[in-house]
């Protein structure tokens, strides 16, 4: 029986094509806005948290203050030094530490020069393992650097797959960094971490001599003793650094961050942004719902006679009610479906522009099944609710009076 209502509704909607599309437009725009904004927000969230997630939860990151989410290094006022790293390694609850350098440097390949991140690999075995674990580095081609190797590097996946230079880099290729020729020993597997795919790994000593870096370091990765609470160890690390760097509490020139903290900060910011944006889009959905209600009231007036006829041939009140509710629900659902296609298309277009023109993975649409199903359901519900009152009016019509129209 429901099929019949659907069929009748489809016929009536098709009979009034222009008006039906205009009616649905409100829902289409609202859902398109919701879908594109949520999917882009979700993509951004995944891209950002993906970077933190690779850190693991039992690790801390110590950075000079002011580094924030951006690349650490030369912008910081007071750098961290190897002395700080040693202080940290002595803190109770700290298992291993790895001092890391992360700098931007000009890289030349076949007379083409571009700027990329150079990241250091510690020379000692513990630190090396910590960094490799933390960044989840795996080799896709060639091999990993051996400790002490001076003129070898390992490059991120994008060098080998996304033509950062005129042609893709292969193992054995020679790059020139700040005028020094280095050989590509290996290529890393693709990472969720955006920076990682476009970074070049070098041994710490080689990087220091190449960039003339003294004892300063850009970041310290800390592995917490198994079973210790990362938050508590973070506090102890902060205390030790305050003492050694001679700063008061609250005026630290460094930050100690646990990955969970970082993720939750990003998440809460993104959630607020998404809520605001979706709230604005929801206004359009309400307006769309009112549009449907208006159309359905008009339809009831127009089809009074039809309603009377249906009642004469045996339609009961609930039949008429269902008929109109299904029609308005269908208006909502079709509007929602169209909106999803439009929103998804817009999201994908932004993704394409982001990756091909702007070269960023931060702008990408993540369209989940939940979002699609939720949007269709929601627009169906908006349509149905908007149609309820007009449908009730139709259902309660007296057949004799209705047919007199």
């Amino acid at each position, binding site marked *: 029986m429901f*099929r019949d209502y659907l069929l009748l509704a489809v016929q009536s909607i098709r009979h009034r094509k222009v008006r039906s599309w205009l009616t649905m437009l409100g829902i289409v725009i609202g859902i398109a806005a919701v879908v594109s904004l949520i999917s882009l927000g979700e993509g951004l969230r995944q891209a950002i948290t993906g970077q933190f997630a690779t850190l693991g939860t039992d690790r801390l990151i110590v950075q000079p203050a002011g580094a924030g989410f951006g690349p650490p290094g030369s912008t910081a006022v007071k750098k961290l030094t190897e002395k700080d790293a040693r202080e940290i390694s002595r803190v109770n609850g700290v298992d291993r530490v790895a001092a890391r350098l992360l700098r931007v440097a000009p890289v030349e390949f076949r007379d083409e020069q571009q700027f990329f991140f150079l990241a250091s690999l510690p020379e000692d075995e513990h630190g090396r393992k910590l960094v490799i674990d933390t960044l989840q580095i795996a080799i896709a081609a060639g091999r990993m650097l051996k400790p002490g190797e001076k003129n070898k590097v390992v490059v991120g996946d994008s060098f080998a797959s996304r033509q950062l230079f005129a042609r893709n880099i292969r193992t054995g290729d020679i790059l020139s960094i700040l005028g020094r020729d280095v050989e590509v020993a290996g290529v890393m597997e693709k990472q969720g971490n955006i920076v990682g795919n476009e970074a070049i790994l070098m041994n710490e000593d080689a990087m220091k001599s190449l960039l003339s870096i003294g004892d300063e370091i850009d970041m310290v990765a800390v592995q917490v003793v198994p079973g210790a609470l990362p938050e508590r160890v973070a506090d102890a690390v902060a205390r030790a650094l305050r003492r050694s760097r001679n700063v008061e509490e609250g005026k630290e020139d460094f930050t100690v961050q646990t990955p969970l903290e970082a993720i939750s900060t990003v998440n809460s910011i993104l959630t607020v942004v998404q809520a605001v944006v979706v709230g604005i889009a929801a206004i359009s959905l309400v307006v769309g719902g009112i549009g449907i209600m208006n159309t359905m009231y008009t339809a009831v007036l127009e089809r009074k006679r039809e309603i009377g006829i249906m009642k004469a041939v045996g339609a009961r009140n609930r039949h008429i009610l269902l008929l109109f509710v299904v029609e308005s629900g269908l208006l909502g659902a079709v509007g929602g479906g169209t909106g999803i296609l439009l929103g998804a298309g817009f999201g994908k277009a932004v993704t394409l522009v982001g990756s091909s023109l702007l070269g960023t993975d931060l702008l990408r649409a993540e369209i989940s099944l939940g979002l699609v199903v939720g949007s269709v359901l929601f627009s169906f519900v908006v349509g149905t609710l908007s149609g309820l009152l007009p449908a009730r009016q139709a259902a309660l019509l007296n057949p004799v009076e209705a047919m007199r129209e």
Partner: protein
Amino acid sequence: MQDAIIKLEDVWKVYHMGRVEVQALRGLSLVIRKGEFVAIMGPSGSGKSTSVNMVGCLDVPSRGRILLDGKDISHLSESALAQIRGKKIGFIFQQFNLIGTLTALENVMLPMAFQDTSLSERKQRAMELLALVGLGDRMHHKPSELSGGQQQRVAIARALANEPEVILADEPTGNLDSQTGKMVMDFLRKLHKEQGTTIIMVTHDAYVARHADRIEHLRDGRIVKTDHQR
């Protein structure tokens, strides 16, 4: 004497139009027996339409009783009346009253949908009925693509959809030219003769009324004269 299928006992219907009270029916009493072909005749304003509404269970009386198969339906809810109408009464209107967005076939299927008949059954029966009224080749046409006579035949097929006990025809030839009107009347006559369907026809046309077995003359909301023709 055969069983009464519809019985109106001293039925009054009073409409309020603003402050004016209109007494459309003033003590109408009428008995329709199974298998009869009855014409209700009267000039305009005599209460013809109101009596159709009463006999067709489209409205309830202000006073008096209406018995359908011996059951008092005078106080039933609109939904309950709709169910009775759908099952027992087939309507044929002067204006044809087909649904414009539906094809002939779908129009005939519609009353069966409200009785929860299965789709395949509905379709088959609707096709048979359209073939019966000679429109087997016009099934997928919309009403706007059919002539008046064809539309009225679709309406007849629709009226027969749920195998009703009573066909209620309200000026069935009123909007048709005399030749098409005669065709429609011949069909109703045949239906009555061959299938024994009870037919109640309201008309102001004495010529059309002659097809009936019995003519009830309505004036000022009550029966004033009865003519038995055969």
